[in-house]
Each structure stands twice: as C-alpha cells, then as structure tokens.
C-alpha cells in the first residue's frame, strides 16, 4: 500500500485514494487539425515507457479530486516527488529522493 503525497491536500494518503493519469507533460496540441496523422499518433499513443524515473500524472480521486504530477521510479515504485498541475518537473531528483 503505497503512500502518495497529494501536493494540494499536503498529506501522504494511501494509493487507493488515487487514480493513475498516464505520462505527464504531454500538452494537447492547440490546433490538432494542423497536425499530420503521424504527429497526431504521437500525441495519442506514443509514450516514453521509461524504466526508471518517470514523470506522470495522478488524480486524488477519493480526496480533493485534483490532478497533479509525480516522478516515480517505475522499477522500485518509489515516488520521488509530487508537484502541482502546471508546474515544471523539478530539475534534479537525487537518488535518495526529494528535489535538489
């Protein structure tokens, strides 16, 4: 039972309160009609599938219902950091966790 830190509630909450939201920082194109099929495919389906630190979205579905971002190690399942929607991925995540 992983504990996830909701950056809005400012609390560690059990993972059952959250839903996963896929890879983070993928902005919906402002003018989808201007994209080629290949570019649109990239937006819809192509994801980094990182082994290791992965920036992704979570939603505190059974809590404040807000979306937020997280950097999680996909091998160990350790959450390195969580941060609010609209914020940039913290520049340096050290091995022992926490933004540098």
């Amino acid at each position, binding site marked *: *039972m992983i504990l996830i830190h909701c950056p809005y509630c400012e609390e560690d909450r059990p993972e059952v309160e959250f839903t996963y939201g896929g890879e983070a920082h993928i*902005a919906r194109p402002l003018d*989808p*009609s201007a994209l080629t099929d290949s570019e649109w495919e990239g937006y819809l389906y192509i994801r980094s599938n990182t082994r290791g630190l992965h920036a992704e979205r979570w*939603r505190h579905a059974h809590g404040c219902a807000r*979306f937020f971002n997280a950097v999680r190690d996909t091998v160990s399942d350790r959450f390195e950091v969580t941060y609010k929607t609209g914020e940039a991925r913290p520049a340096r995540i050290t091995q022992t966790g926490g933004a540098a």
Partner: protein
Amino acid sequence: MSGYRLSSGGRVDRSRPLRFSFDGAGYQGFAGDTLASALVASGVTLFGRSFKYHRPRGLLATGVEEPNALVSVDRGPARVTPNVRAPQVSLHEGLVAESQNRWPSLKFDVVSINDRFSALFPAGFYNKTFMWPRSAWEKLYEPVIRRLAGLGDSPVTRDPDHYDATYAHCEVLVVGGGIAGIEAALDAARTGSRVILIDEQDELGGAALADPALWSTLDALKAQLFAADNITVLTRTTAFGYYHQNFVGASQQLTDHLAPSEAQGPREKLWRIRAGEVVLAQGAIERPLVFNGNDVPGVMLASAGRTLALRYGVAVGRAVVIMAAHDSGWRDALALIEAGVHVAAIVDIRTVVSADLADAARAAGIALHLGSAITAVAGRHAVKGVTVAEGGTGPAHKIACDAVLMAGGWTPSVHLWSQAKGGLVWNEAWGTYLPGKPQEKCRVVGAGAGAWHFGSGAITSVLPNSLPVSKQKAFVDFQNDVKARDIQLAVQEGFRSIEHIKRYTTNGMATDQGKTSNLNALQIASGVLGRPVTEIGLTTFRPPYTPQTFGALMGHHKDALFQPVRKSVIDDWATAQDAVFENVANWRRARYFPKGGEDMDAAVARECRAVRQSVGIFDASTLGKIEVVGPDAAEFLNRMYTNPWKALQPGRCRYGLLLREDGFITDDGVSARMADDRFHLTTTTGGAPRVLGMMEDYLQTEWSDLDVWLTSTTEQWAVIALQGPRARDVIASLVGGIDLSPEAFPHMAVREGTIAGVPTRLFRVSFTGELGFEINVPASEGRKVWEAIFDAGQPYGITPYGTETMHVLRAEKGFIIVGQDTDGTMTPGDMGLDWAVGKKKPDFVGKRSLARPEMTRKGRKQFIGLLTEDPQELLEEGAQVVTNPDAPIPVPMIGHVTSSYHSATLGRTIALAVIADGRARIGETIFVPMADKVIRAKVTAPMFYDPEGSRLND
C-alpha cells in the same frame, strides 16, 4: 517414562490432560502440547505421505517450516481446514485431526505404488509424459492425476466463520517475539514510541522456549513487556506480507486453538499495520542434511528433537543418533542427555570439532564418529538403525537407533526482509544469505541477522557415500519428493538458473515454500554447475509467508457488503410493487414489474403497449447529471462534445455525443441550457464518473484558463420519466408556473416551475418516441412526487415500467445505447450520428481522429436494423452476421447483433446490429449462423416505428 513422554521437564501442564483423535484413534496429551508433540509422545512416527511418491513421512521440524506433517483439522461441519502443519496446532480437548494424501489409510497407502516406479517419475516427468495419445489426456490422464495428486481435501461448503480486520499505526513494529525481539520492543518503548510486537506462536519466547536456562530471563522480560502501556503484544499472529513503505499484513488466530464449544466471535483478525520502523527478529531455520535415507520417519532436525524434549517434555526416541555438520547439533545432544533422552552417538562430517564439545560429549557417554557420514537408514515407517561410514566411503558399521537428528547449519529467515526488497549478502563461511542493505526503514536483530551463539559448522551439499548420487534416496525437498539426483538431472538437461531448476524439479514449491530446502538445493546446484552460489541466483520471496485464509483477507467484504449497492429514492416503491431488479453499474434498477404471475416477456409486452397507448412511468434517477456553470460553460461544452452548444438557447435541450480523443463514442445524453452560463448535463448511468473525470482532466490540465466549474448532481435530482400520449394530461393538474401547451413547451425544451408543490426542472424529452417528460425534482422529494404522479395517472391506466421495456421502446426508434450498440470502436459516422457533429467547430475532443483515413474508409461497421424472415425468431445479442453461411471455415464475419427484442408494438421481433457497409446493404438478406441452424434476416434502417417522429411533436 510412559510412551515417549518424559516424566518431568518441558512447559506442558501435566496436571491438565487433553484427549484428542488422529485418524480415528484416540490419544492423550497435555495442555501446552501441539498435535505433533502429543503424537510423538504417544509413539507416532508416521504423519503423512509425500506429495508425488506417497512415501511415508514423519515430523521434520517443530516450527512453521514443517514440510511433512500436514493434517486436516476438523472443527465441525463446514469447518475442516486442510494442510495444517501439526506442530502449529495447539492441542485442545476433543481435537479431531486426520492425515492426508493417502488411501485407504496412512499405513497402507495404495498410491505408494508410485514409489516403486519412481524411476519412471523423475523430476519434470510431467513435462515429458502423459502426452500420447493426445486423446487420452482429457479422459484418462487428467482425471486420474487429479485424483492422485493434491494434499488435503478442499472444503465444499460455505465458510460459516466470520473474520475481522483492523488498521494499526505504530512507531516501531517488531516481528518475532524471541528474546531478541522482546528486547528490541522494550528498547523502542523506552523512548515513548508506540510499539507493536507480534509472534506467530502461542507464547512469546521463540528459541528460548527450548532452553530452560533462559526461562527466568524470559519471564522477567515478559513482565516488563506487559507492564508497559505503549506496547501491544499479539501472539498467534503471523506477519505474512511486507509491502511498500513499511505496510505489513498480519493475521491473528483467535479461535482455532479453542474447543469449538468455547470458540466465539471472529475466527481470525487481519491487521494492516503501518510502522515508522520495522524490526525483524524472526530467527533462523535449521537446515536438514542431504544423505541417503534422510526421509525415513524419525529423521528430523536436531532443533526439533531439542524442542520436543525441552519445551514439550517428549523424547523423540529411545536411542537417538545425531548427524551433525554444525556445533549446534552437539549442544542439542548434550541438552537431550540432560533432559533424560538417551543419545547413542554423534556422527559428524567434520574431522575436528571444538575440544569443549568433544570432551563434554565423551563425558556424557556418547559414542563419537568424527569425519564420518550416515550412508543408509534402515526402516520404512520408522527408523530402525543407521549405517555409518568413515568419510562416507570407508569402512562402515551399523548403529541401532530409532531417531536421527540432523544438524545441517542455520539459515536466517529473510523472507519478509526480501519481500521489502532488502538486499542479501552471501556469507561464504556460513553458507547462507544474510540481510544486507534495506530499502525500507527496517533492521534485523538476533539470529535472523546471523547473531547466533551456538558455534559454527561445515558447509555440505550431499554427504559422501560410495553409492553414486543417482542411486541414492537423498532428499532435498521432503514434501515434493525432490532428491539430490533430481537437481543433478535438471542441470544435465540444461537448466542453469535456480528459477528454472526450481520449477523443473518443483523444489521449494510446496506449502513450506522451500524454508528447509532452498539453500540445500542451491549448494547442490552450485556443485554440479561448478559455479558459486551467488551466480546461480535466488528465487524471489513473495507473500504470504505461510498460507493465509481467504476469509481473513476478505474480512467483512462479503454478501451485502461485497459491493456498494446504490438505490434511487424510488427503489422502495418498486420493491413494494414486486419489481424484478437488475444491476447497472453499482445501481439497483427495476427491470420489469410482473403482474399476476407474468414472466418477463409478458410483463414487458404489457408495459410497452401501455406506454405507446396511454402512459408509462419510469425511474430514470440513476442517470448521471453534471451542473456546468460559468461564463465559459458553453465554450467548454463546445470543446468537449461533438455538438455546437453556443447557439443553444436557454430553455432548450440537445442530445450530446461525447467522443474520446481517438474519435470513438464514449458517452451520450440529453442536456439542457438553463441560462447563458448554466447547463444541466446528463450522462449514461454507468458512464457518469468516467465522464466527470474526463471533463475534470481537460479542465484542470489543459484548459485551466476557462472560467467554468463542474458539480456532480447525480444523486441530488430524482428523475421521473413520464412517457406516452397521455403524459401531458397526467401532470397538467400537478404542474405550477409552466405552460404545458405544445406551442409554449416544444419537444426538446426545459422549463422551471413546480410539480406537486415541489420545485422542478421539467424536461420535455423522449427516449421512447412518444410524447414524454423527464421530471427532475430534488431527490428528497422524489418519492412524494412519484406517488403524486402515479395517483394522478390512475384514470389513464398509468403503468410503471422498467429498464427492459425502456430498452425495447428505444430500440423501436433506433436510439443507441452506448456500451451496448457501441463497443468503444464506433465513430459518429458508423452509428449514423453525423448530424450531431458540429461541422463548423474548429475543434472538439476526437475531431482530429475522425479525419484519419481509417475512420472514413469503406468496410467499417455501420449501425443498421435487422428483421428476421421468421417474425417470431429472436436473434441472440452478440451473434455474428455473415453474408454466406456456406463459405469454408473460417467463414468471414461482417458484424454482430447488438440489441434484440420481441416488439409488442410491431407484433414481431426486431434487432439492431453493426455490420460492414451496413447502410449500403439495406434491403439485402444476411445470415446469422447459430449452433443448430442458420437464421435469415433482412437489413433495414435502424428505425422500426414512426420514422417521421410525428408522435413526438403532439
């Protein structure tokens, strides 16, 4: 000494005898005994049969690592628990237990014939045999193997016990209540921390319970424990799983140790513990030695012999031989002598042992055979003697004995540590893995960290013998009958990794999960492969540590509490009308209202006729509703849905279609504009949470600049659908503040006012194709308004109808149901809903995907109707559609039936389907092959009734 019970010593209470039965025979033990100790005291050596060869099996250990003595404990009707380890069963008056995996009896097991043919059943045999002929597998091999295989019998009736669960938080969780664990708990408690100490046994003490010299220390420590008010002590509690961030699952046994008449309350309690720090004090498990004949009943671990004598006051035999590779075996021998057990000899593979031990043993009169090994064991159901040879291959001689105790060294219990992904470090001197670097806030104390005080030993794999390994019956895994030669065979066959060796031989895969066999298997594999143990790997440790009941994991989540059941405010009224219900998502919905013994078809036919001829009333409260409010409300809906919303006037409704970004239909619903900046949106019943989640996703993470907010109002509005030509008449006298005339209140409009004195948003919408209203009132008033309408409708024969009738009536009009007629791969064009797509909108969710060539190509499945040639033939939903039923297999399929009903309105059956190029096929005959026949049907437009919609606009 009577039987094998020592006249004094041990922690059993000889003043409290207890009677119990095993395999139908009556025995006696004492309070404090386990089933195992009481049986050994009575001279029982045979406890079970091994899994594969049905070889006779005796007790190996006195702890949870026991692989052989698996019994079924019978606590009464429906309460037989199979595969319980006899040393874990606390004795109580009237205990009933049976051995397993044998027929007709333990002594005369017919299936032990397997053992005679064991050469035909080496490791991995089932990967190579029972393959030919193929036809024999289903009818012969599988049923026979199924009957012969397995351990105890599974229960076949419902578990009548109930199980409790709780959460606990503490600063320090200590797992293991031996002296090391108790001291760790006391240390932590002194700092003021909340401490939880758990131990799987019936009393604290761990290994100290078999060492009387430590009992007074133990008592003093326990007194301190119980005096502290910040330490919670749980015995009979097993930590079975160690999960992320110090979350530990533990199951506490509450009643199994009590006589059934005394057992009250929940049988077990599941503890979900979150700890600041976890201290593991789980000790170490002794290793058996691998030698020819080591599986004869009466051969057991030295620590088991010691525990039986010093904790339970039971002599394991009248003449005991120790086979040692470790000093601990010598200490056990001396302790046994002191307790009054006769030790005939110590055989040690080492040529030199410490002088202290050797002198003490000689002084005690024990014959010593250093640099020697047991090469054979006489006896089948019980040990009769051993053959000992110098160096294993030299001159041999026999020793008469009735018990052999093996001291093969110690393996720290690293199961929970490893579950928590703690690192392991190979210790060459001790031939075992020790805990290394933790991943969680966790530390190990005591023997589990290698801190034991009973000397050292030699590392062995198979003990030397003049017989080649391939001819020896030298067992590594006693439960699964894996011999040393099987591990050699696996390597011979090309398996290099321990994961493959394990699965090919099944070593370590039994109910004991390799607690006594993994390390020995590693050593043997290492020897045969010629590679160090660290290069062969170690199998993964997974929860649970010991078998857990489903009941404990389930707790209270069963029957009515298994899933939440959502009910509308009308549910009770429908129940009183004897409605038949169905589940839609988590909602309970009335499916039909049978009268006077009607079956579903008759009830639905009557309900349908009533709606089209007069008026019906339907509970639509479960529909999802979202209040969309803000200056940018219309802009937001424009971006989300396919439809144009900006031009929709307040007071008007529109059928909204929602796509995913990949262009496929995901939801739909009629929505109303209440004001410039306020929409009352509806969704399907099952889609409500998904749609709101999707909208919040876009609003929060893509279009946060929009000034609009969303509120779920699904449960706030009760929705009463009133459908039929008399619908307006029914509510005319109830409605206030609204002009109901068709000129003032057209189809697809909404008005605010009152009904039966209650505020309402009155929608004029129809899912049936008849004149209709959906009356939205605050849920708290829903029942009252429903009853007022029902009363007002009596003169018109108002008829309650359920979801089944609702499905039929909408199908007659060709209205889709998302998730039934669509399957997540249909576009608006496929479903004939292009009219709902705003052509002038620059963008909406899914628009870009609709422009993909795939989405407009010929051959896509399209939504159409089907009319069977036999008007009473009912197509099956999901049935496949073909153009040529005589085509060779595989017959090309062009689509499937999505909805199919008897239509009382048309007096025949109707169906809806999606088939390739459906619209171009209108007028054609297609075929629906079933198991016993082929059904012919004509393709039509998906519309069977009032195609002009004239009945809607009255």
